């Protein structure tokens, strides 16, 4: 009896479990309205179409954990994507791995610069990344030369996002691998613990010998690498590179993390949470047209859902704190 009670408590106490419950309810509700939602194909489509947000969400987790924020990622993505697109269009490169490597390299440099300004220049992360948001987006426009790179000029590269291994799309595999890597990083490595430590209490972390500014630099660089990679993936998935691609999507990524229970003040959050948060947003985007909510009302619905989820989160947290307090008193 006692055992089962503690399992129940453990279940309700865990943020991820409550998210999964929300997810299941959401899926069932949508599935009832529109049976085609819960088919394998529709779910596979959904993952492929939201790979970019999902990958960036886990990078954003790292940044948020150290108490930072990065709103330059959509611009980094556009810059690296546009660069790859133009290189392919001009015929400078043709090989897919090289294209992805270049995109990752650009992302690495972009992220490193943001990280240096934040960690070594002592600039507030939101301001530093806002400045770079303008700069990278501007660079994307400048290198685009007012052109798009489209299916016809991308050659084999666009087939990368069509290929499948074991029935799962290549880009989804990349996402899975990144999630596994981050799960291991956060759970079982000292670097992962350092991220949490710096975010929870920077001074304490520094006193205990952690070089906090290097940890912050790492988190932004990692974010940049992922954003750069996503630039290449987005070009491959949509077979098109445009200078304004994913404009404003950084907010979606941050929202995904916050819905997934990642604290914006640092130190709290998990890889699974970031994943579930991104998944909820993906399901909403996928479901709204399916259940026939007017296009015009979609933003209102999205705004309400974000507010409700974060407020519910606070309320459950409060009642949990109260309960544990009571228990201690007894």
């Amino acid at each position: 009896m006692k055992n089962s009670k503690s399992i129940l408590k453990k279940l309700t106490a865990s943020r991820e479990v409550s998210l999964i419950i929300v997810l299941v309810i959401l899926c069932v509700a949508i599935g009832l309205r529109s049976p085609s939602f819960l088919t394998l194909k529709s779910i596979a489509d959904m993952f492929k179409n939201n790979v970019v947000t999902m990958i960036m969400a886990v990078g954003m987790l790292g940044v948020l954990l150290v108490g930072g924020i990065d709103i330059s990622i959509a611009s980094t993505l556009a810059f690296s994507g546009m660069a790859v697109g133009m290189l392919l269009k001009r015929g400078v490169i043709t090989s897919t791995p090289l294209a992805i490597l270049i995109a990752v390299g650009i992302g690495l440099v972009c992220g490193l610069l943001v990280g240096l300004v934040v960690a070594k220049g002592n600039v507030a992360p939101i301001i530093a990344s806002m400045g770079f948001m303008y700069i990278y987006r501007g660079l994307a426009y400048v290198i685009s030369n007012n052109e798009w790179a489209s299916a016809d000029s991308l050659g084999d590269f666009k087939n990368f996002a069509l290929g499948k291994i074991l029935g799962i799309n290549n880009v989804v595999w990349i996402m899975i691998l990144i999630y596994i890597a981050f799960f291991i990083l956060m759970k079982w490595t000292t670097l992962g613990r350092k991220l949490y430590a710096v975010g929870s209490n920077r001074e304490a972390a520094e006193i205990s010998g952690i070089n906090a500014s290097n940890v912050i630099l790492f988190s932004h660089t990692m974010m940049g690498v992922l954003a750069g990679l996503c630039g290449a993936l987005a070009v491959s998935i949509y077979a098109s590179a445009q200078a304004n691609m994913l404009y404003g999507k950084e907010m979606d990524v941050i929202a995904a993390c916050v819905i997934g229970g990642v604290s914006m003040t640092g130190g709290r959050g998990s890889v699974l949470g970031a994943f579930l948060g991104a998944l909820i947003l993906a399901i909403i985007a996928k479901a709204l047209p399916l259940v026939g909510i007017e296009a015009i009302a979609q933003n209102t619905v999205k705004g309400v859902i974000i507010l409700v989820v974060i407020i519910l989160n606070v309320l459950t947290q409060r009642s949990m704190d109260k309960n544990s307090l009571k228990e201690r008193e007894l």
Partner: protein
Amino acid sequence: MKKRIFSVLLCMAMMASLLVGCGSSNDGGDDAKSEDGGSDSGKKVYAMVAKQAGNPFMEKMAEGFTEVVEAAGGEAIIKYPEEGKADHQITAIQSLISQGVDSISVAANDENALQPALEDAMAEGIKVNCLDSKVNADSRQLFVNQAGVDEIGQALMDAVLDISGGEGQWAILSATSQATNQNAWIDSMKEIMEGDEYSKLELVEVAYGDDEPQKSTDQTQALLSKYPDLKVICAPTTVGIMAAGKVLQDEGSATKLTGLGLPSEMAAYIGDGDDSSCPYMFLWNPIDLGRLGAYSAIALVNGDIEGAEGETFDAGDMENSPYTITDAGDGGTEVILGQPFKFDPSNIDEWKEVY
């Protein structure tokens, strides 16, 4: 006390800089201007305000515009707004007024929002026309229309009828729900659909992909799973048709696509076989649109026309020259470039190199 001195100093410095910065330029500016006028010997300046930066359609339009203006011995300014929004076009227009250009040709992001800025321009004696997307009748002298709304509606409707084989379900994938051009074309298509020959066609949904690849992809996939018997998707927007073409082709879907798209971006999807998603589509030549915009701006500046109905102007070696100005039906006037042009497998390879 010291504090007060300090703030007084600050204020004085601000004032002084205003005077030094702007004031001196006022005097110097007049000199410079007269010098400019002398060296350029009355070179006319024609400006075009694009809808947004980084858009190949606008770029080709700008190319045609510049070519004609420079051939006529004028100077062309292509002004891009910071973002594809009416807000930013207002500041672009105001900046052009400051520069004292002779004409402004604008591809508007909002029909009404530019009115005060364009009224200011006209009050300064600047000639105003619009191309691609119009502004309301009060804020323009002439609209250079790519093709009549009803011609586009008719062409798209006939394509849907032809591709579907005369009957069945079809859907529209548009840009944003607020896009003026797209809404006008869709309304026209709905009107044409009242006709008897279209009675077996069923328009199941008008979806909006907001001209974002990701959202357009979501919407296309939703259409496919909601309506398994869907015969045709018609996407009268360049971003939407690309995303839809990609989805349909990747899935090898039986649903076919038509609409309005850029040949250079759509070449990979156009073909007759089952492995191509789009049998044919339409568009007009953006280069010609820009050229006609320039010719009409030149005619306005030279005083050859005033933008009144019935006037004609010469457009160099363009196909339908001379063009006649007609009533646009919204209280203003327009000149129509021509019929929408059909791109099919026979001519796509030739046109994808052009625009």
